[in-house]
Structures are given as C-alpha cells and as structure tokens.
C-alpha cells in the first residue's frame, strides 16, 4: 500500500436524502429552481456524514440492521445513486453484484445476454469469447443446456447464477457484493465462496453486505457499521461485529 498511497475509494462526508413516501406529488418547478424541498419533515437521510477511505486489497464488510443504509451506501459507491451531500471518489473500475440480473433481457437468449452484459461492463466481443466457457462452466450445467433458450425461461436461481458468473469474470479491481450469496443452492454457494476467495487473493478490493457473521468473518478484515444512516463503527471486522451484537442485545 505504500507504493500506492491513494485510496481506491474515498467517501467524503456523503449524505443522501430520501422521501418517506416513495411516490410523491412532485413539483418540477420547485425542484429545478429551489433544489431544496419545501417540506423537510417528509424526508429523511438515508446516509449522513459518512467518511472513510478504502485502500486497494481491503476486504470490507458492511453491517447494520435493515434500513440502516448498507445497500444505499453500496449503490452510491457503484455510482448508481448520486449523493446529495459530499462526494465519493472511486478511482478504479467497479464490478457491482447488485441487481445481478438487471442487465439481462428476457427475450434474448442466455448466450446473447452474456455478450450484451459483459459488453455493457466494458468487455469486447473477443474478450467475452475467451471467457465464455469459463462463465458458462461456473453458472453450471443447467445454464449450459439452456444457452440458446430465451433468458426469461430460466429459473430465478439460474438467472442469478449466470449474473454472478458474468460479473465476477470482469476484470474490475473493486467488487461490490450485496447479499447475493443468500441465493443459490448449497453447491453454488460453495463455488461462490471459492470464487470470492480467488478474487481476494488477486488483490481485488471487496465490499460485502451480509447478515451472515460467518461470511463476514471469512472474507472481511475491516468492518463498517451503519446505524440509521450514520457510520457508528469502523475498525477490524471482529471488533465491529462485537459492537453490532452488543447494540442488538
């Protein structure tokens, strides 16, 4: 790390404000000209005053109760949500394992979808060619048999497996994982663990959201603890887990 002192992810006092009711009567005029909403009581901060630095090779586990802001933070880092306050700087490419099947289209075949999704994440056709077998192997024999079937005929487990397989094959140095390990059968879970360990030993940076203490302890060295949108703990994974379980006693 001494060779590369710049953190790969730095969050600088980020905050993001949500509305309590999801669909709201929005005045376009208001939002363009004032930027601030006139009814502050109806909003809450999904994240507030969050600052941290993550260095290359770090394995970070995010803990916290439901609604604490874990997924929100992950999405801010992935760049699919923009903070209202502060700034997050991500200096390397990100492979987001969030909404794994988001890039897939039901009408295309699995084969076409692999090329499309990998393409959206920046792989060229030739690069996908090279990795195609690896991707399909990892997703399992069921997926291989259904390669030329429209994607919407896949079972949800198969969809997630293919999604995981494509995204983890990307060369991105930062990997964001949002509880995807909870899906998939036991055999696939084991494969996922192996793949994640391989990625970690490859000096990738990992950000993991999980409720499983076992997963967190297994992969993560550093923990961040989010409580009602605020960062209340940042330290070695075991300490943060202890703090979290004390809080929830």
């Amino acid at each position, binding site marked *: 790390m001494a060779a590369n002192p710049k953190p790969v992810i730095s969050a600088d006092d980020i905050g993001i404000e949500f509305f309590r009711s999801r669909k709201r009567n929005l005045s*376009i005029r208001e*939002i363009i000209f004032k930027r601030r909403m006139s009814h502050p009581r109806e909003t809450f901060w999904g994240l507030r005053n969050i600052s941290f630095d993550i260095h290359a090779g770090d394995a970070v586990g995010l803990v916290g109760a439901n609604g604490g802001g874990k997924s929100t933070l992950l*999405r801010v880092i992935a*760049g*699919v949500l923009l903070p209202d306050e502060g700034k997050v700087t991500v200096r390397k490419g990100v492979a*987001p394992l969030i*909404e794994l099947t*988001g*890039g897939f289209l039901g009408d295309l075949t699995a084969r076409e979808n692999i090329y*499309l999704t990998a393409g959206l994440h920046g792989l060229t056709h030739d690069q996908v060619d090279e990795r195609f077998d690896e991707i399909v192997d990892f997703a399992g024999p069921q997926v291989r048999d259904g390669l030329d079937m429209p994607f919407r005929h896949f079972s949800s487990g198969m969809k997630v497996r293919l999604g995981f397989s494509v995204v983890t094959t990307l060369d991105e140095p930062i990997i964001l994982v949002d509880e995807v390990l909870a899906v998939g059968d036991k055999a696939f879970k084991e494969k996922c663990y192996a793949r994640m360990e391989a990625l970690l030993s490859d000096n990738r940076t990992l950000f993991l959201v999980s409720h499983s203490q076992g997963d967190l302890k297994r992969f993560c060295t550093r923990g961040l603890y989010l409580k009602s949108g605020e960062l209340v703990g940042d330290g070695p994974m075991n300490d943060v887990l202890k703090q979290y379980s004390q809080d929830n006693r």
Partner: protein
Amino acid sequence: MATSVVKRLYQQRKVLRIMVQRDLKVRYAQSFLGYIWTILDPLLMSMIYFVVFSLIFQRGGYGLQPYILFLLTGMLPWQWFNGAVTEGSRALQAEAKLIRSTRLPRELWVLRVVMSKGLEYVFSLPILLGFGVVFFIRGEIEPNWRLVLLPVGMAIQFVLLLGVGLLLSPILVLVNDMNRIIRIVLRMFFYATPIIYTLDRAPGVLQTILWFNPMTGILEFYRSGFFPVPMQLPPILISVSVTLGLLFLGRLVFKRLEPTVLKEI
C-alpha cells in the same frame, strides 16, 4: 463540466454501439420486412395527404411540386423526430433496470435512442432519393448543389433531439402523466411544422410563429436541394438558436434531476 460528459460518453462509445446495433437488430430482425415496417408509416401518410390534397381537393399550391416528393422530404425526418421524442423521453424509464445496475453515464440512454432513430432515417433516404431520381428523369425537378445541405439538417436535428430527450426523459420519470401530454403536443407539432404545406401558405403572424418551431428551419435544409426556391434565413437562424438553447436547457435539467431520478427509478 460539459466536456467531461462528452468525454465520458465518448469512452462508452463501444457500449453505445452495442445498444444501437441491438436496437437495429430488433427493428430489422425479419430483414426486409422489418425495413418495410419502418418506412411504411411515413410512406402511407404521405400517400394519404397526396390523395386528399392533390386528388380530392384538386388544389395544388399547398406545397411545392411534385407534391408527393415535397411530402416525403418532410414526412421522413418527421418520423425521426416523432420516434426519437416519443422513445427518447421514455429512455430512462424504459431502461430502469440497466440504470440501476450499471454506472454508465445516464445521458447514454437518450443518445442511443436519438442515434437508433437517426439511423432508421438514414436507411429511409434511398426511398427519397429513388423518388427524386424518378422525378428527375421525368424532368419534373431539377436538383441543385444544395442537396449537400442534407447532412447539415441532420446534424441540427440530431442536436435538437438530444436536447429534447435530455429535457424530457428525467421529467417523465418523476411526473406520471407527462407521457400523454407529449403525445398530444407531438400531434400538434406535426401540423405546426411545414410538412404538408409550405411556410408561405401561413398568414403573416402565424408564419412568424412557425419560425420558432426548430423543425421549420431544419426542413429548409432537407428540401432546398430538390426544389429551386430560395432558402428562408430567419427560420434557419431561429432553428439553430432554439436547438442550442434546448440542448443547454436539456443538459441543465438532466443534471439537476439526475440524483432524484436515480432515487425514484
């Protein structure tokens, strides 16, 4: 700021190509039949107006002669305009899943629609040129050097559509009824654009109002190569200014609304 978005979009040109290719593939999936579908609409509409005005009303002078060629020079780019505004304003909504899962610059989704629809327009140009050649052989038109202005018109229209798409697409995510309003406004715009008539058919004040429709000036570029009438400068200048203004406004609104859109999508 402005340069950084352009740079980021340029970096993603590969993705853009994949998306546009996919759009066209879907469109032209059944090869020739797909192509016919895309040109059938403007072709049939042109024929309807031709029949109504030239054969039933039997009054020339609504447009330039030959009237069917005049109609097509307006109808084909209108198809592009109509398609790109309709789908461009829906671009963010339609790709919600992709927007939630990839960090591609969000402007890309608008740009992609404008490009796909633009390519469809380009592919429809052989039809226009075919009609042009037929009328030329029959000695009914005398094309001139201003045919080379056609790409200029396309460039302006491209920027115009990009501006409109950037302006409308975030609004459509946040305001549910916008869809219907856009449909109605588009229909009004069709008649407020000199597609089935020439600009000078409109009486004084109305004519001046029509100048402020950016498509009015753009059509001048498309038509002047086929028809030997002088180009009208005021609508062209207004068209360019309105286009640039809309692009600026569109970018501003898009940037302002982007964080909110991402939360809602």
